[in-house]
């Protein structure tokens, strides 16, 4: 995927995510032209920049925070939008994948890495819920439980 394609894909994902989160009222007002969706370019915060490594890859603290946010997200699309917000380079994606203990191959391109990260933080929970026929979020994320009742 070319850089231009990635930028457009990212923009569309962000717009789609925003539309999905709208209330019915907001949606009606958007369709009626009463409100608009604007794209605003923001300067990267100094804090974010400061925690990056020399090669512009993410620092450990930043990775930890990003992974935590991904793990709190319940939709793959939202996760992708979140990854896009960080304008991640391939080395950063590799660092994140390694941080969450996902196997990384030299053949992996950025798209594959993004997919692996999303599956390991969000996708596996969605799979589990779907197979169990659940639509709610009742996952126990504790590793301390000794025994779980089947009911």
């Amino acid at each position, binding site marked *: 995927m070319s850089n231009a394609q990635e930028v457009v894909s990212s923009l569309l994902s962000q717009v789609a995510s925003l539309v999905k989160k709208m209330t019915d009222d907001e949606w009606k007002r958007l369709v009626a032209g009463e409100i608009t969706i604007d794209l605003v370019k923001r300067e990267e915060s100094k804090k974010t920049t400061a925690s990056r490594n020399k090669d512009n890859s993410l620092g450990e603290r930043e990775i930890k925070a990003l992974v935590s946010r991904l793990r709190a997200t319940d939709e793959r699309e939202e996760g992708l939008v979140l990854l896009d917000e960080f304008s991640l380079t391939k080395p950063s994606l590799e660092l994140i994948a390694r941080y*969450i203990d996902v196997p990384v191959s030299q053949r992996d391109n950025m798209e594959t890495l993004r997919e692996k990260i999303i599956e390991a933080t969000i996708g596996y929970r969605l799979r589990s819920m779907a*197979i169990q026929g659940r639509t709610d979020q009742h996952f126990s994320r504790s590793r301390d439980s*000794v025994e779980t009742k089947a009911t």
Partner: protein
Amino acid sequence: MPIVSVINYKGGVGKTTTTANLAGELAWHGRKVLLVDLDPQASLTFSFIRPEEWLADFATSRTIKKWFDALSEGSDFPLSDLIFTPPRTNQRLGNRGGLDLLPSHLGLINVDLELATELGGATLRQSKRRYLKVHRRLAEGLAGLEHDRYDVILIDCPPNFNIVTKNAIVASDRILIPAKADYLSTLGIDYLQKNVSGLIEDFNEYAAVEDDSIVQKIDPAFLGVVFTMVQFYGGEPISTQRQFMNQTKTLGLPVFDSYIRENKSVFGDAPLYGVPVVLNAYSNPTHSNIVDELEGFVAEFESKLGMGARP
């Protein structure tokens, strides 16, 4: 006498190897173990009985299929009549504990069809009664064994959720899930959770409407997931498998700290000789490491099951 079902929806996950070695090590610790093979593939049975012996001495009248068939035909006989003590394993055990087996039959799959015909009824009440009767069949059979004859009963379940499997779950106090750390096997864990929950819900709802309240409600709990066929690199499971192990740990089910590693040269032909790997002494360090790991798994199993001090 705790009863533990060993099950995974996904086949080929090392379920039979896990069950046979768990039983062997528990018996080595002095415990009396009964293995019930409910899988029509009869792999556990053929781990202790040679197929030609099975055909000559067991197939017609000494398998769990015969017992289910007899019940359906109204000619009841006790499960204890079918119990077989595999000689090669028990010779290895010497004076320690003991390992017995209720053999399976390749035609056990037909029992599911037979049991299904016994369900239903003219009224809702009759249907519920029949449901309870059909699903409690194994539980009642096992309850008929002498109370102190065994310290633990392990049921090797087929990789499905048919009526025979449901009989195993209804009879069980705990459920052990052997799983490969890969995508499809971990999906099998979710299928199983869903179906066990559904079975408990249905069974207990039906049990509640019985006037005489003789039918006890069931509450089998997941003892845990044990990862099998684990491949190691640099002293730890390979990363492709680690990710599925880590994911399973966060989904709410208990997961054993111990693993059972992949080793075809050790596990591949062990059933041929009728003695579980864990009862063999190996001089080769790789092989003895496997035995150490199996021993670690069994110690964890005993602890999770609250089995108390070894005799």
